């Protein structure tokens, strides 16, 4: 152990220190101020903090490197992930502001917990040691459990929080058990040392540990068969919390999973590829068929999230440079499309309050063309129809799988993609062709803007995908 100076370069930690320090400062501000104005100020400052952390990751970390004896790594992949996580969390907070005020949930702890969760995610994507991995996972999950139950007077939100907490604790147990096995059989918690230890002989103990770690992380990305909590938690939690759940934490967990599989266990591809293969097929299948019968749009998005995690796992199963950058491209496009979709869901407000049934969208394309067109474009994009950006994401994932010789997996992915297109198209059909008498009240400015911008972006950003791919390729090559 290097005891002389563990912090060689303080700037490598700039995003995390900004987020943690900022969260504590805002906590003080929240405790000693009162009223709606102060709450709005804290929201704006938190959004600024998240953007600042993303910028700090981009510009202050230089060429990257290792900190704390290799427990914390800053490489292009971590930087890419931190930028996406910071931006999407800022957007999710922007979505939450009007909702929390109108539902009388505006308490400053929401913003603080969200910023602390993002701190945990930044630690996850930079984890290069089993202990720092667990610390990051636990910091973000604990904050997310509280956010799920944030509306504590609602029975459904409390149930969602409790369910998420119990199953999350179980998954943390699996993760820790796996980590302890890996430590026991390799003698180190550092990813670099583990990679050396497992590169030699065939090590059953380490494989068992690795499978447990994969299961623990599969809970966090809600991959089947560890997806049971997802629909209930997505439905029960307040909608902006659901929007947050479906974006930044997923991105952080999938990047962490990719790093764990590619770095310490990069030499054991043949052992873990089958596990990831099964997880991917089950997720895509359960996501596609489970969504067909859903009536609630939040539950529909939960199943959509499960199936999209399946495609992300296809990219990981490819276990190649192409797989990694296509994973980053796919997930980035997915995260921002989901933010747009949830912004549309948050615009579904009648005089009586929020509605979230798919039937409530009936005929909305005629009554509210902007919302109708935007949601249509977003549904097509998430469904992966050609000429929308979502198609590009899925296309490169499949390309990576074919390049790695995973033909059966690619064929299954295409088939399930066709099935899942059915329910995205059902939403579009309800919006355009059904008659409905539900009248929405005008949406708040931020919901209005984000829905429209995301809808337009799902077509117009096509020329810029090249730029995204360019950045993702530099990030994706970091791990190999």
């Amino acid at each position, binding site marked *: *152990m290097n*005891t002389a100076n*563990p*912090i060689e370069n303080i700037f490598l930690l700039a995003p995390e220190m900004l987020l*943690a320090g900022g969260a*504590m400062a805002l*906590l003080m501000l929240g405790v000693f101020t009162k009223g709606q104005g102060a709450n709005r100020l804290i929201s704006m400052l938190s959004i600024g903090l998240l953007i600042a952390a993303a910028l700090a990751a981009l510009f202050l970390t230089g060429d990257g490197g290792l*900190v*704390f*004896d290799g*427990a*914390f790594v800053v490489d292009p992949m971590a930087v890419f992930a931190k930028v996406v996580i910071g931006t999407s969390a800022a957007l999710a907070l922007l979505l939450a502001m009007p909702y929390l005020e109108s539902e009388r949930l505006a*308490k400053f*702890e929401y913003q*603080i*917990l969200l910023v*602390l969760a993002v*701190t*945990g995610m930044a*630690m996850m994507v930079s984890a290069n040691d089993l*202990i*720092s991995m667990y*610390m*990051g996972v*636990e*910091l973000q999950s*604990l*904050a997310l*459990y*509280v956010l799920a*139950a*944030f509306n*504590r007077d609602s029975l459904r939100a409390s149930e969602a*929080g409790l369910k998420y907490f119990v199953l999350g604790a179980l998954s943390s147990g699996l993760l820790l058990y796996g980590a302890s096995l890996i430590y026991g059989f390799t*003698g180190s918690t550092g990813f670099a040392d583990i990679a050396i230890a497992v590169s030699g002989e065939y090590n059953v103990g380490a494989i068992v540990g690795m499978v447990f770690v994969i299961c623990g992380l599969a809970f966090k990305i809600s991959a089947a068969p560890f997806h049971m909590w997802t629909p209930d938690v997505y439905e029960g939690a307040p909608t902006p919390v659901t929007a947050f759940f479906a974006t930044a934490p997923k991105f952080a967990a999938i990047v962490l999973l990719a790093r764990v599989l590619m770095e310490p266990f990069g030499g054991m591809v043949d052992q873990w590829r089958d596990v990831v293969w099964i997880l991917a097929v089950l997720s895509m299948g359960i996501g596609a068929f489970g969504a067909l019968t859903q009536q609630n749009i939040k539950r529909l998005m939960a199943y959509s999230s499960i199936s999209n995690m399946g495609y992300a796992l296809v990219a990981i199963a490819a276990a190649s440079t192409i797989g990694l950058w296509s994973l980053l491209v796919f997930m980035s496009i997915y995260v921002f499309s989901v933010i747009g979709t949830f912004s549309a869901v948050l615009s579904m407000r009648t005089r009586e309050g929020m509605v979230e049934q798919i039937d409530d969208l009936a005929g909305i394309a005629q009554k509210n063309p902007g919302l109708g067109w935007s949601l249509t474009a977003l549904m097509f994009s998430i469904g992966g129809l050609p000429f929308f950006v979502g198609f590009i994401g899925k296309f490169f994932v499949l390309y990576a799988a074919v390049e790695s010789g995973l033909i059966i997996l690619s064929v299954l992915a295409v088939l399930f993609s066709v099935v899942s297109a059915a329910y995205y198209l059902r939403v579009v059909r309800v919006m355009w062709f059904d008659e409905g008498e539900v009248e929405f009240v005008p949406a708040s400015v931020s919901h209005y803007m984000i829905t429209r911008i995301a809808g337009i972006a799902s077509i117009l950003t096509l020329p810029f995908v090249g730029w995204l791919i360019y950045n993702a390729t530099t990030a994706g090559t970091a791990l190999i």
Partner: protein
Amino acid sequence: MLASLAFWAFSGVAILSALMVVIARSPVRSVMFLILSFISAAGLFVLLGAEFLAMLLIVVYVGAVAVLFLFVVMMLDVDFAELSAGFAENIPLGALVAVVLAVELLMIGLTWESAPQAAALRAAVTPDGLSNVEALGTLLYDDYIYFFQAAGLVLLVAMIGAIVLTLRHKPHVRRQNVADQVQRRAEDAVELIDIKPGQGIGE
């Protein structure tokens, strides 16, 4: 010689008192035996040369955790005799699980191979020339500072979460405001009235 005598005494008391925690009828007695067990374990730590951990065990576990247990046990009126009423019927199942666990432990114990450096590491609990506190401090604040700070953040989230989910401001509860109390002056609170003999206040 004396050290091994002390080891047998401390470990014997620790095991016996741990057994008594489980079989004592009164829960208060269980907690008392738990404290005895903690103190014996602290003695074992002293024998290992880990004085600081021994002190921590007494201060944290005996001083805080066991006292908390005692409060909970005394305040909650739980009839433990009633809770353990079904004990006899479940003994076969319990015994089966115990046997399975024992066999598993034996299998692990028989196949276990210690690392070659393990014996040397066990002999030197702390590095030479460093006191306990220094060795722990080096670990926590130099080598593992990142994990230590991250654990602190996790605890902060837990605290915020507990407050968010449970604290309710009731409108009719009067809360103490120290600043108001300190700033209160005699003129605001007390009125001095000069009462003439035989007149009363007059109202």
